[in-house]
């Protein structure tokens, strides 16, 4: 069962071949058996999952099942789940039981899906390797010496290892697409505003976006049908109709105009990754697409601009963790300043502190214009680059990451870690959607092809990705770890 897609499992549930209880128990057993090695879950909600599964089976018996009723999923531990620990990968929130459900959680639950638990992540979604978690690093099921990517590393690893058929992630600078690429699965970052951020713990509010991580684009389409849409509780969510993302999956690609940004194929790109991506592009040509080189001239400003804007927002978003109302509080504070400083010093990890300091600095009087205002100007230029490119082509393609998954502990220097996100970060600054699909291997580790579209082009991206998956089988390959732990 673990090698089946959500689409296949849904069909099996619908035909009565499987019950949700069987399915849920199966995956819970796999987690029980294998996750000691992977560390992809922070919290497993087995009991709750089984009772939800029973409710799903009953709903089906009563003829009230929807398409995804009874499908087990996992949630990145950034989504608030009522009554369940929601840690955001931080010691700061190790004791935090969310008193409410995030909108995404509410929608998934209303659709009848089952949550198996909360997946591991870089603390407050800050990281590209999942090594910044209070709950320890997550391992890549393709190679336990490798990182799964981050920050949605737990979700990616769990899906790749067949511990859950699909999971929810969030992406602020690549946190869905890069771990999807590293773990050989499919991950979609929707347009900013397409999915509600309510109940998703904020890292950088103007960049954060939730999205599905699964084996196939088709699975992502099913999940997008559930989670996309306007939410009155999130002012930045967009009031715009949501299409049925599964309907256009099989649209033919003949005449599709693909752009290859030359800046995405430059220095620092691993040759094997480049080869895999170029091979993938050839597959598209064989499907009738035309390919041309395009330019996104401000690409090299994306990382500096991101590391001004995201930490600035984060420094403010994370001010609420002060030890006063919830979260970690130091022992026996002597006064208010002691309460603040020790609670925060003890509760936050290194990378989080680093970004709070950067953000606090860039917002300070005398620095604000030079950093924040300037970065916002750069952001507009980057967005314009994409809009200009989409005048000429339908989609952009390139690698999701310059290298395949690197070894645990390999990147000690924060800046070298930041440079990992060179192909993903600009997408968040522009607010456009992007998807990463498995496209081969480099040194035995998966390579992700990133496909970008203009604002609200999710249906097109899913169609383009699905057609590739009809023509290739990279997405169906499972790591040996998944089989050994069957």
């Amino acid at each position: 069962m673990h090698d089946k897609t959500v689409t296949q499992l849904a069909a099996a549930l619908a035909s009565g071949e499987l019950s949700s209880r069987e399915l849920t128990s199966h995956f819970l057993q796999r987690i029980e058996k294998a996750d000691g090695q992977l560390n992809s879950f922070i919290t497993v909600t087995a009991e709750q999952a089984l009772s939800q599964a029973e409710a799903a089976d009953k709903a089906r018996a009563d003829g009230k099942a929807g398409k995804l009723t009874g499908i087990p999923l996992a949630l990145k531990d950034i989504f608030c789940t009522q009554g369940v620990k929601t840690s955001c990968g931080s010691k700061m929130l190790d004791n935090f039981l969310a008193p409410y459900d995030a909108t995404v959680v509410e929608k998934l639950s209303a659709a009848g899906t089952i949550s198996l638990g909360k997946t591991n992540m870089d603390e407050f979604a800050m990281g590209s390797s999942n090594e910044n978690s209070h709950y320890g690093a997550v391992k890549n099921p393709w190679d336990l010496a490798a990182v799964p990517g981050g920050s949605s590393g737990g979700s990616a690893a769990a899906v790749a290892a067949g511990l859950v058929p699909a999971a929810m992630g969030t992406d602020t600078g690549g946190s869905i697409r890069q771990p999807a690429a590293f773990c050989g699965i499919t991950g979609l970052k929707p347009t900013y505003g397409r999915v509600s951020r309510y109940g998703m713990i904020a890292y950088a509010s103007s960049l954060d976006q939730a999205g599905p991580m699964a084996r196939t684009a088709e699975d992502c389409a099913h999940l997008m049908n559930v989670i996309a849409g306007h939410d009155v509780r999130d002012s930045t969510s967009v009031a715009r109709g949501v299409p049925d993302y599964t309907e256009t999956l099989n649209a033919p690609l003949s005449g599709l105009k693909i752009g290859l940004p030359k800046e995405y194929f430059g220095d620092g790109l691993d040759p094997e990754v480049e080869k895999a991506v170029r091979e993938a592009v050839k597959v598209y040509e064989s499907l009738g697409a035309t390919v041309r080189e395009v330019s996104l001239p401000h690409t090299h400003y994306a990382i500096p601009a991101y590391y001004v804007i995201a930490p600035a927002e984060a420094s403010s978003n994370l001010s609420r963790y002060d030890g006063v109302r919830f979260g970690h509080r130091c022992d026996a504070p002597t006064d208010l300043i002691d309460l603040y400083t020790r609670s925060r010093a003890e509760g936050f990890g290194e990378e989080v502190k680093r970004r709070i300091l950067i953000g606090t600095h860039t917002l300070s009087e005398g620095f604000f214009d030079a950093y924040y205002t300037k970065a916002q100007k750069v952001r507009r230029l980057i967005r314009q680059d994409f809009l200009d490119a989409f005048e000429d082509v339908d989609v952009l393609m390139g690698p999701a990451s310059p290298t395949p998954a690197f070894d645990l502990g390999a990147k000690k220097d924060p800046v070298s870690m930041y440079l990992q996100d060179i192909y993903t970060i600009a997408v968040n600054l522009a607010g456009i959607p992007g998807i990463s699909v498995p496209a081969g291997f480099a040194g035995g580790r998966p390579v992700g092809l990133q496909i970008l579209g203009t604002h609200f082009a999710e249906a097109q991206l899913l169609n383009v990705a699905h057609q590739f998956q009809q023509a290739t089988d990279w997405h169906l390959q499972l790591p040996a770890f998944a089989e050994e732990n069957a």
Partner: protein
Amino acid sequence: MQWETVIGLEVHVQLATRSKIFSGASTAFGAEPNTQACAVDLGLPGVLPVLNEQAVAMAVQFGLAVHAEIPEVSVFDRKNYFYPDLPKGYQTSQMYHPIVGAGDVEITLDDNTTKRIRIHHAHLEEDAGKSLHEDFHGMTGIDLNRAGTPLLEIVSEPDMRSAKEAAAYLKAIHSIVTYLGISDGNMAEGSMRCDVNVSVRPKGQEAFGTRAEIKNVNSFRFVERAIAFEVERQIELIEDGGKVVQETRLFDPERDETRSMRTKEEANDYRYFPCPDLLPVVLDQAYLDHLRNQLPELPADKRARFQNELGLSAYDANVLSASREMAEFFEEVHRVCGDAKQAANWVQGELSGALNRENLSIQNSPVSAQQLGELIRRVLDDTINGKAAKQVFQALWNGQGESADAVIEAKGLKQVTDTGAIEAMIDQVIAESPAQVAQYRDSEPEKRGKMIGYFVGQVMKASRGTANPQQVNGLLKEKLDALL
């Protein structure tokens, strides 16, 4: 040296929305601590603000009322600082693009002259919670009921030159916001608070002196006292060779003094930046027109109309337009009785006196505007005389009758204007007062005028106050003079 005082005010007005500015929690005053704070107000992880449209409408109404420019786009910013009663670690406010631009307000001074005070801008923001230092045995309690209550901060230009002008400005703002119904204006409950910026400069000098900001002054009286103290302190300091430092001071009403809280060097760097959780507020012309059409007549317009159209004195017009309730009461009395001057006299005299004695506001007046108007009408049409009118008023005040007419009927206060009946009473009084008649007769003619008062009193008494005093006077004089 002659000194000139320069004052600017930042007035925080709590808007009377039903729910908070960014959440659905109630804004009602006085609930049990932390019972009116939802997940958003508590700043729980993952929550997001949603702007209350009612707060926007109220801010815009204020802007229109002070002839301000309303920018098409305004933006919320985060003001970052740590404090236990500030749950998110930032206050959502408007730093760079406020909802209300430059405008002005007319204030009326004691001598009934007016002056225009310019408003720099007004912006929307959320209030913080309250820190409670009592009853917690060395710890601090936090009540977040107030967190997220919408505030409109109105920032004036430094246009005021005395404590009296500052108080008049505060009263003008109070009157505008209560006229608009956008705030209850209750200063005791903190619905209006103000920060006062004060500096002094040698008379004739153009450059401003260094200012001190006095925080959280919460009554008209305190504003005057705080400024008076601060001006004196600054002048003394400079005259003794010292320098005023830019700082934040606190007014202590118990000791009637201001004390330093923090100097400029210790001031926070609030690290303002646009709030990424809220979209810019975009207002179109149709929306502004819609709100403009709903504006009530404002205090300055009412004052002018009371003077120009109703012929009231500047003083009367000012008093009667000071609050919307007072103005509406007066206007109803006037509508019913038809005589503005009489209506003004009764509202400011008998009614205000009675209200003050019992410490009631005009909204809670036991005598309605309709009742008072009818009462005045009965004076005007000579149904009752002035003395009886006071009795009728008292009866209505005490709830002893539905209307002036009912009281007049029940108490038999209808004025006697029948000459025959009055003559009969006069004849009786004269017959019963031989000594006084003799005294009258023996007096110098110029002293008789005064003595007639005794007889008038007796006749009025005999009529139980109902005889028409003018008639009594005339007839008495005739009859007494006939005895000479």
